[in-house]
């Protein structure tokens, strides 16, 4: 009985769909964005959060049958414009389509991929991209139920062709919403302060999704009646907001940790992504420079046997195997931190061509060793410190990294 009471209490306090007025319909908004190409959780310190498979799974579960549910993404699918970014953008667009995404903000990062890619992303997303700021391609608003959703990009500086002023774009969205008796939702490629300014100018705006670094706040910001929210960056969490036509009412941050299962449809898209980066030989297309030659860890063992033996016992000595087991061993995003000298013409090419440069070796930290091995007295390596570790063990890939405890695992003279 008590359990039932507990359930009842939760239903009462948290009842997302419990109507507060008999006639008021409730709507749910599921909000993501700023994935910046983070398709999968990455890193050597578990657990990692995020990834498209978990995101789509959570979206699909929370959206349910899709009635009165708006799935919104604030754009920033990728952060670059290389071929890998194009493939990532296509994968993300197709995955979001599979959960019936309502609108995706077409931002500068998507525009930078070029008109052909924008058209490809539009097709793969189910025509979900929208922007009132970019005049081409022309999809200024999305209408869903009583809401008008507009993608807005701040127009400071020279952001490229076809960008119209922020105020003009927002005025256009708000005016159109009024004409259609809709409530305005802005997906803003801009900061909290920009969102606040817009909410002050247009207090009738229902909701503004802005961009921010780091994590999503645990409570929504407000300016008058307008809610100002951000899903944070790198798609490690989602926002779930519910409300009536009159106002948003409830807010929750959904953390995309390992507790969330992988979505099979997004999983298939992700497998195709991995397959495509191998078939298109993106690893082989990485720009490489001429440096002092790398010689491999075995060459170091001739004089530094105890250090070599210590290295063999560390996770560094089988770092590439970790990637191979997860099918990321030809993924340019990942390989640099699992091999020696990926940016050098004399660096790692493949396990068969350059076996001594596979895994994280001596030269990953100390630098290329050809000069030193030919004349150790003349070419001495400088002492290294914590900074060299944080090249790979950065807060994103290695969130719990602390130098002292990790150095203890690899300590050598």
């Amino acid at each position, binding site marked *: 009985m008590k*359990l039932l009471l507990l359930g009842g209490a939760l239903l009462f306090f948290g009842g997302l769909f419990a109507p507060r007025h008999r006639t008021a319909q409730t709507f749910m908004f599921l909000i993501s964005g700023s994935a910046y190409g983070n398709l999968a959780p990455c890193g050597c310190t578990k657990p990692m959060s995020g990834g498209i498979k978990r995101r789509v799974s959570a979206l699909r579960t929370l959206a349910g049958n899709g009635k009165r549910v708006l799935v919104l993404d604030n754009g920033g699918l990728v952060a670059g414009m290389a071929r890998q970014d194009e493939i990532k953008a296509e994968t993300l667009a197709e995955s979001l389509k599979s959960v019936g995404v309502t609108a995706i903000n077409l931002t500068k990062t998507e525009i930078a991929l070029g008109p052909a890619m924008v058209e490809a992303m539009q*097709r793969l997303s189910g025509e979900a991209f929208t922007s009132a700021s970019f005049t081409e391609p022309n999809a200024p608003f999305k209408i869903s139920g009583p809401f008008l959703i507009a993608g807005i990009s701040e127009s400071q*500086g020279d952001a490229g062709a076809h960008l119209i002023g922020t105020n003009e774009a927002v005025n256009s969205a708000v005016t159109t919403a009024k004409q259609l008796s809709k409530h305005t939702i802005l997906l803003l490629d801009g900061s909290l302060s920009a969102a606040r300014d817009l909410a002050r100018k247009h207090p009738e705006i229902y909701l503004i999704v802005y961009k921010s670094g780091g994590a999503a706040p645990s409570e929504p910001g407000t300016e008058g009646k307008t809610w100002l929210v951000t899903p944070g960056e790198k798609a490690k969490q989602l926002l779930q907001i519910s409300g009536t036509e009159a106002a948003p009412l409830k807010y929750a941050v959904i953390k995309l940790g*390992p507790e*969330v299962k*992988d979505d099979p449809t997004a999983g298939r898209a992700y497998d195709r992504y991995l397959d495509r980066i191998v078939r298109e030989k993106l690893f082989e297309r990485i720009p490489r420079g001429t440096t002092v030659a790398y010689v491999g860890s075995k060459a170091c063992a001739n004089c530094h046997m105890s250090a070599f033996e210590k290295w063999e016992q560390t996770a560094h000595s089988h770092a590439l195997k970790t990637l191979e087991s997860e099918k990321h061993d030809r993924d340019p995003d990942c390989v640099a931190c699992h091999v020696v000298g990926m940016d050098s013409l004399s660096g790692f090419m493949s396990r068969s061509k350059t076996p001594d440069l596979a895994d994280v070796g001596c030269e990953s930290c100390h630098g290329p060793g050809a000069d030193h091995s030919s004349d150790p007295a003349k070419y001495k390596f400088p002492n290294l410190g914590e*900074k060299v570790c944080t090249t790979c063990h950065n807060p994103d890939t290695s969130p719990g990294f602390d130098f002292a405890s990790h150095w203890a695992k690899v300590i050598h003279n």
Partner: protein
Amino acid sequence: MIALALCIAQVNAQKIVEPVVPAGSNRSFQEAVIAVEEALEKGDFDAAKLKLKALPRTPVAIELDDSNIPVAMRPTILEAVRKAGLMWEQNTAVKVTVVPNGGHLKISFDKELPKGELGLPLGAGHLFSTDPAEPRLQVAISLSRGNPISPTMPNEVQNEVAHAVALYIGIDRSLRPGSVAFRTDLSGSGLIPVGAREMIFAQRLNEVTQTLKKAVESKTRLMPARPKLFLEVREVTLPAVIQGGEQTFNIQVTNNGNAPLTLMVEADCGCLVPFAPHQIAAGASGQIQVHVNTIDYVGKVRKWLYVHSNDPEFASREIPVQVSINPVFRLVRPGPSIIQMGEEDVDAEAFLWFDESTKILATAARVDGIRSEVELEPWEGMLADPEMGEGPMLRKGYRLNMHFKSSFIAGRSLASIVVTTDHPIFKTLRASLGFQRGIVALPERVYLGEIQKSANRAMFLLSRPGQDFKITKIETNSPHLKAASFPVQGKWEYRVNIEITGEQDAGLFAGLVTVYTDDPKQPTIVVSVEATVR
């Protein structure tokens, strides 16, 4: 006088304020400890003994009520419950047994539970009881979860039971995903481990329970430990700092209670490194010092500190931390993002400047990925920085004069501008550079993703900006793939519309479109088209 001194000594002897409950324990545990202590303070040792029953006991006896489970499923569920117990036993000193009745932790199952915070059916409901006649913690696990509703899997049962054990032994719900102290009503097929956090707390909380048991047995009068946390701030907004610069801040914590306040401070990101005193004496203050790693971030960043304490009113609290990090350098190349290469060599320039507060010197520059020569020279002038949202303004730094050698390999490629500096952290600065040579297909391959067995359309562009060419013929290698071209930009860019007819077999479709041109150096351009037909 002597009698008075003895009396004072006796009163002082009664004022033993212990045990100190560790931060990170849940409110139910903390309240159960206080209830025992209050009885001990009054000298009511029988009541204290009774109250002890509300504290976790080992082995944890799980009373499994499987009456709502279909008979065929019962062995599977029992196995999942046992595995959850085994996870605890393998990683901690916590022992778990499954008993038919009289358990401390009762696990039952319901066909479906009501909706919770997320609007989803609850995966489990938890209820602590202070009635000694009832199990201390009752947990109802739903046999279905998610939306659309689907059967709860054995792994999910195992995760729920492992989480229930964490709650029972007094561990607070974690705010960070990744170990059994965290839970969600979303579906999850993977097994969640008993993590380091649970291992530490299982031991510490057991020590607290054992101390209280001894006090009851020895009839020692204790004063309830009532630490009271006061945090100076609810959120932290830091002044702007240069990337790579030192950023440290302090949060004052005051203990307004009568017993030591224990603290545990975590961050949601490796970029915040908190140092907190483990204990703050009654009436004293301490500082949580937080070091901010500013190397890997630029712009406004929001991160979280999680403060756990043994004050039951503030078992856990989140503190948002706003950091504003200015970039230490900017490497900007004005003009189109892609450099067009023709028959001739091409010159381009890029600009590098450092934050005014730094004294960084650029020592050399090169471009990896293309034959090139690069000169680095001091420079001062007006320039916009669109990426940072800055219009033209006076900048002072370096100009990179880049000369790229022509070599005719058609297509798009990527190169890297590489600048070395004398800075110990930012030794090598990089920026990407795109090149396009000849007639190029955009995107270079057409991807349709998963499609149904129906007509699907897509397109690609064939482009050579500013240099005219003609398409003389288009053909495909499949009867299910059609293609046609149309000029879109004068005579140097064409749109090629393609259609997969919908008559192809299920599975991977890989077709080729071959475009014939009037350019003798690129007489054919082949573009692959791929889709997965379901």
